[in-house]
């Protein structure tokens, strides 16, 4: 057999003591493959290996056994016969006794025991034999760390998969395990140990079974690990490991109630420890153990538990004032970990037994505290500690009330009448039901009572929501708390409403306002089946809140809390749609808000009003549709006022409305799905507005007005979120309007005549100034085109392209965006005659190049291929039309980007053209073209054009918000940036070397900087060695001009990426002195703090390099950094200190 000779080779390689671990792995894999292919069967393998498995040389034997075991571990999915499994497992379990070769035996047992039934598994009796051999022969604690881990894994595997087989081992098993796990210290092994104990507990659940004898011993081992705490921290994932260990230990603690007599005293003792983390852990463990041990066992600890919870939460509360405290009237607290865990524990024990509730209610400290607090009426006096205590007491009592109906009854009986009394609220009489009675409704301002009252209401709400699903309404009515709530909720609500309506609100009663609003919110969000308030009161409370939102905009506190409450109430309606409340919410809240935005008085603090409208609308789709209707009306009114009359106020407002639309409303609809109607209606609405207002205000737009921009963004987003049909509808409508407005004629060509009349256009330079309306039309039209889907068909494409081309020549950037969107999405060839698509990509490109570049007759540079662009023609042409030169370059850049993204070959031509433009200056003095140029070229203009060409690389490489992104359905080939990067960089770097003129070189560096800073770091890393010198030159040249600081910053970020990535290290080491020199120069770059900071951070990163390379530079760096210590900016000084100490330690 061919397999056997090959396998002998591999066996020998493996057993050879000089083999590296990689080679060994390779031979294991090779043998496993042979077995999988059936070139070799397992019997043959064992026969071949016989010598290695039985030799007396223990090194060779252990390696032989390990090889066999590792091969088996690779064969988990290959079926094996029962006989082979039988003899193999017999062999391995016997070998467990061979301590010199035990690793192989353990791995082998593990591999065989882990097999699935379908591929042949070990029988129960064999598994038991393994377990017995394990218990008799293996001295786990005498093994090394890795072997211990393996043997624990083996035991875990036996316990998990063969539990029935080993159950009757009883004491032997338990004793063996105790011995094996005692004194274990390695974290990885401990996780396994904890899991073994958990499995053991599952194996012997019987309270009088074998485990009961060993519970104490086991827990003695286990308990010594609590709490998990690392004294020597090693690395970053310490926290994860600690977390994992702690969870495993927790499960082991709670695995059996038999541990209770030992674990609870330990945990309670740790609760009184001074280490906060130990306390937190103890609370956590007790909460979980409580659920597992059962209430009978826990009752005896009730008193002790309660006192420790009280100590942690109430006696010495550790809560900190939260950042939102301002918004909650000074009562916002963040509980620390300990308090949170203590509350969790409280909740657990409360749910188990009512005895805890009794304990809390009979607690003197809480009682006295509440009573004394209720007596003091002035909130101003209450110190921070008292407020923290109040917060804790409220939390404790509401946990009590929440836990069950019975304990809720008790809590209400003991405290509720007291609170109502303190607030001066008397129960509603059956006779007066549904109207606001002024006399009895104003309550006394008692902060403590009010706070607790609100907490109670919240607890009741939780309780009803919990019971709502499976309890009949009649059950509620019998409960004491329920009856009390019914009697008092009406008067309470009236009290809240009249307080909010009264003018006391003005005078700094923020905390009261917050509580009243919260009270209204809670009362209004009780489930439908349990309605503590009448519909009339519900309406009244909504009305109150709405009137706060609509009228009290300058009192920001009450405004925000009322809005929040309304949103909550709205969301609650959405959760349980009961028609009665939804309709009253709609008629009171939504209609009022709609009226607010559509009415004229929106002018003041409009952004807040729009915020309110959106927040309330977002609670439910039906509401949002109504709100949008209102928004549409408002937009129509203000838009035409701004557009026709130039009303400044309306201008600002319309901009704001449109922003709300594009930033909030449209994304909301996009998220909720369906409803294409809204964006279509919106887009058509804007076009209709434009159509209706024939005369536009002739005033040229002042710079402050951003109405056009806002409209365009909203239009783009709206069109972008439509389907193909909707988009076609919009584009057809806009195209018609464009035709009607004679837009095409004004641009210099007659309708239907597609051959361009560029000459006419060239004389017509007054596009921007005279016809403001045309700019609007074209810009909006461009926005529509930008957001079209690739499938959408467009009317009369040629005209459209001509229109955009001529607009680009006039410097209209949005048209360049639109044209690039077309180039990006059009199909390259039209298939079928009946196609709606009226134009193909090839045609468009021909048109573009035809108008951008004059066809040249001398053909000095053009090739024979018609697709190639005539470079000289371009130069002449662009240079002739002075005003259009840079516009053409920008247009070209966008077209290039579009082609690049769809992966079209012509992007290469555009790149070459741009490069040619970039080197205009350098070509002077070169060959015969000189004359042509100097004739037409304005000398001063050349540098500007070169710069423009260099910057066009930024356009090509960067992501744009305006167009050509996923939101506007651009065609994006993966990795297009990498492709551009790797094709352009070699050209640029060779040109840099060749170029003689300094101005050309600086432009080349500029283009290089743009390409590099937008390219993905991985692409740069692979070229790091070549790029670093150029990057450094780049930094040196760019730092001469202050205006280029953004570019420098981007390049510097690339450099820092190279420095911090391990793959870049080699290239960095080679250039260390140059890099450091350049960085030192930049630490003194006075124009930008960010650059200085990054440069210093880069220097810190450099200090990590091998000392031999950087030691010579130490003095230089330290000297220059000491200048940065005196930097005007504090952050720079801090970084400099860090850098200095990093370099100081190099020696």
């Amino acid at each position, binding site marked *: 057999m061919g397999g056997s000779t090959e396998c002998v080779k591999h066996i020998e390689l493996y057993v050879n003591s000089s083999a590296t671990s990689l080679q060994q792995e390779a031979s294991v894999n090779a043998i496993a493959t042979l077995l999988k292919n059936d070139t070799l069967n397992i019997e043959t393998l064992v026969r071949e290996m016989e010598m290695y498995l039985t030799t007396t040389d223990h090194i060779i034997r252990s390696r032989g056994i390990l090889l066999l075991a590792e091969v088996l571990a690779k064969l988990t999915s290959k079926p094996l016969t029962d006989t082979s499994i039988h003899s193999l497992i017999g062999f391995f379990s016997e070998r467990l006794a061979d301590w010199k070769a035990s690793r192989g035996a353990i791995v082998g047992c593990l591999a065989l025991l882990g097999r699935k039934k379908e591929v042949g598994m070990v029988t129960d009796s064999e598994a038991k034999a393994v377990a017995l051999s394990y218990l008799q022969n293996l001295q786990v604690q005498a093994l090394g760390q890795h072997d211990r881990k393996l043997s624990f894994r083996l035991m875990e595997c036996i316990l998990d998969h063969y539990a029935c087989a080993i159950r009757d081992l009883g004491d032997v098993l338990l004793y063996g395990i105790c011995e094996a796990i005692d004194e274990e210290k390695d974290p990885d092994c401990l996780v396994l140990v904890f899991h073994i104990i958990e499995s053991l507990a599952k194996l012997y659940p019987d309270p009088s079974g074998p485990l009961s004898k060993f519970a104490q011993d086991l827990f003695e081992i286990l308990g010594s690990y609590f709490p998990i705490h690392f004294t020597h921290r090693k690395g970053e994932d310490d926290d994860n490991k600690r977390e994992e260990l702690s969870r495993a230990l927790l499960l082991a603690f709670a695995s059996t109630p038999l541990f209770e007599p030992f674990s609870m005293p330990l945990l309670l003792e740790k609760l009184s420890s001074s280490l906060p983390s130990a306390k937190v852990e103890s609370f956590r463990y007790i909460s979980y153990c409580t659920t597992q041990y059962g209430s009978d066992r826990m009752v005896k600890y009730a008193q002790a538990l309660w006192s420790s919870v009280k100590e942690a939460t109430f006696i010495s509360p550790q809560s900190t004032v939260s950042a939102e405290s301002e918004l909650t009237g000074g009562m916002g607290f963040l509980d620390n970990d300990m308090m949170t865990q203590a509350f969790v524990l409280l909740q657990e024990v409360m749910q188990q037994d009512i005895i805890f509730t009794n304990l809390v209610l009979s607690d003197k400290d809480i009682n006295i505290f509440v009573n004394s607090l209720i007596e003091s009426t002035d909130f101003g006096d209450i110190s921070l500690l008292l407020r923290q205590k109040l917060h804790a007491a409220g939390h404790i009592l509401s946990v009590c009330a929440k836990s069950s109906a019975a304990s809720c009854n008790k809590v209400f009986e003991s405290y509720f009448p007291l609170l109502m009394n303190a607030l001066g609220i008397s129960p509603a009489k059956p006779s007066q039901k549904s109207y606001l009675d002024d006399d009895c409704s104003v309550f006394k301002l008692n902060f403590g009572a009010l706070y607790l009252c609100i907490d109670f209401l919240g607890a009741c709400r939780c309780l009803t929501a919990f019971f709502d699903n499976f309890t009949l309404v009649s059950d509620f009515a019998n409960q004491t708390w329920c009856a009390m709530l019914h009697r008092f909720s009406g008067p309470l609500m009236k009290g809240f409403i009249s307080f909010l309506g009264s003018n006391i609100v003005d005078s700094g009663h923020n905390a009261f306002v917050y509580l009243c609003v919260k009270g209204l919110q809670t009362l209004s969000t009780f489930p439908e089946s349990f309605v503590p308030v009448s519909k009339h009161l519900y309406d009244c409370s909504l009305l109150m809140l709405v009137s706060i939102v609509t009228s009290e905009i300058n009192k920001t506190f009450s405004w925000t809390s009322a809005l929040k409450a309304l949103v909550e109430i709205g969301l609650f309606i959405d959760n349980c749609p009961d028609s009665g409340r939804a309709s009253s919410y709609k008629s009171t809240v939504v209609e009022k808000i709609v009226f607010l935005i559509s009415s004229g008085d929106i002018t003041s603090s409009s952004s807040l009003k729009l915020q309110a409208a959106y927040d309330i609308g977002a609670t439910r789709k039906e509401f949002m549709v109504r709100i949008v209707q209102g928004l549409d009306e408002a937009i129509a009114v203000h838009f035409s006022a701004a557009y026709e009359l130039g009303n400044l106020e309306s201008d600002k407002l319309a901009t704001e409305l449109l922003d709300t639309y594009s930033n909030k409303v449209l994304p909301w609809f996009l998220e909720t799905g369906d409803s294409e109607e809204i964006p279509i209606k919106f887009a058509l609405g804007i076009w209709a507005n434009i159509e209706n207002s024939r005369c536009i205000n002739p005033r040229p737009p002042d710079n402050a007005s951003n109405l056009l921009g806002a409209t365009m963004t909203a239009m783009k987003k709206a069109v972008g979120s439509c389907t193909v049909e909707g988009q076609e509808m919009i584009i057809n409508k806009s195209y018609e309007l464009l035709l009607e407005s004679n837009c095409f004629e004004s641009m210099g060509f007659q309708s239907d005549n597609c051959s361009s009349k560029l000459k006419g256009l060239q004389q017509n330079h007054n596009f921007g100034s005279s016809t403001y309306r045309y700019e609007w039309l074209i810009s909006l039209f461009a926005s529509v085109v930008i957001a079209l889907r690739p499938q959408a068909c467009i009317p009369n494409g040629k005209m459209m392209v001509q229109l955009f081309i001529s607009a680009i020549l006039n410097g209209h950037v949005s048209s360049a965006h639109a044209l690039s969107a077309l180039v990006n999405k059009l199909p390259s060839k039209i298939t079928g005659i009946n196609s709606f698509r009226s134009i193909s990509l090839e045609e468009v490109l021909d048109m573009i190049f035809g108008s951008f570049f004059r066809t040249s007759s001398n053909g000095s540079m053009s090739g024979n291929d018609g697709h190639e662009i005539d470079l000289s023609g371009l130069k002449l042409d662009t240079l002739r039309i002075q005003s259009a030169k840079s516009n053409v370059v920008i247009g070209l850049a966008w077209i290039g980007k579009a082609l690049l993204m769809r992966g079209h070959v012509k992007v290469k031509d555009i790149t070459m053209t741009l490069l040619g433009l970039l080197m205009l200056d350098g070509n002077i003095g070169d060959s015969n073209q000189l004359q042509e140029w100097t004739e037409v070229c304005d000398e001063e203009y050349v540098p500007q054009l070169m710069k423009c060409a260099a910057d066009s690389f930024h356009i090509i490489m960067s992501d744009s918000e305006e167009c050509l992104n996923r939101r506007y359905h651009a065609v994006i080939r993966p990795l297009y940036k990498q492709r551009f990067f790797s094709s352009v960089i070699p050209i640029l770097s060779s040109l840099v070397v060749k170029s003689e003129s300094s101005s050309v070189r600086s432009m080349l560096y500029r283009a290089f900087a743009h390409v590099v800073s937008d390219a993905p770091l991985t692409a740069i890393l692979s070229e790091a060695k070549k790029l670093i010198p150029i990057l450094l030159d780049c930094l040196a040249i760019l730092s001469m001009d202050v205006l280029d600081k953004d570019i420098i910053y981007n390049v510097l970020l690339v450099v820092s990426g190279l420095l911090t990535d391990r793959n870049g290290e080699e290239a960095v080491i080679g250039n260390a002195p140059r890099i450091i020199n350049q960085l030192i120069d930049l630490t003194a770059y006075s124009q*930008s703090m*960010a650059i200085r900071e990054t440069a210093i951070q880069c220097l810190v990163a450099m200090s990590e390099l091998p000392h031999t390379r950087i030691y010579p530079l130490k003095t230089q760096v330290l000297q220059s950094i*000491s200048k940065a*210590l*005196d930097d*005007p900016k504090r*952050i720079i*000084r801090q970084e400099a*200190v860090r850098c200095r100490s990093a370099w100081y330690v190099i020696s």
Partner: protein
Amino acid sequence: MVDGLINANPTVYEKKERRARIPPGDVDEYAVEPIDQQEIFDHVRDIKDPEHPYSLEELKVITEDAIEVDDKQSHVRITFTPTVEHCSMATVIGLCLRVKLMRCLPPRYKVDIRVAPGTHATEAAVNKQLNDKERVAAALENPNLVEMVDECLAPSYE
């Protein structure tokens, strides 16, 4: 050296909150931020006590108020309070402060370091020792002392 610790059980206080970084964007690029009290305090607060694993801030050896800065005159004066009166570590602490500030402040600064009046048995001697250029230089020639100082100044990465 004395057997055992000089102050075996020092009181540990809470740390103050650190200065939050101003988010970029609303920073005036050219505004000058002079070196102030808190900045100096930030430099020295994390120096480890030579005896205990606590920082000088936690032991209240240094407080923000005990630092006087005059950025225009390039002058700093730090007054520190040893935890016990007979603390023989006072000179080491003072040396740590001086070395730390030598590394953190621009060279134009003059640094004065002194023990708070009435908090140390040999106040005058310690003050003299700490502000004597040559004695400081000599101390820094001593490898044992330098090792001790470097250990105290090692960053704690909290």
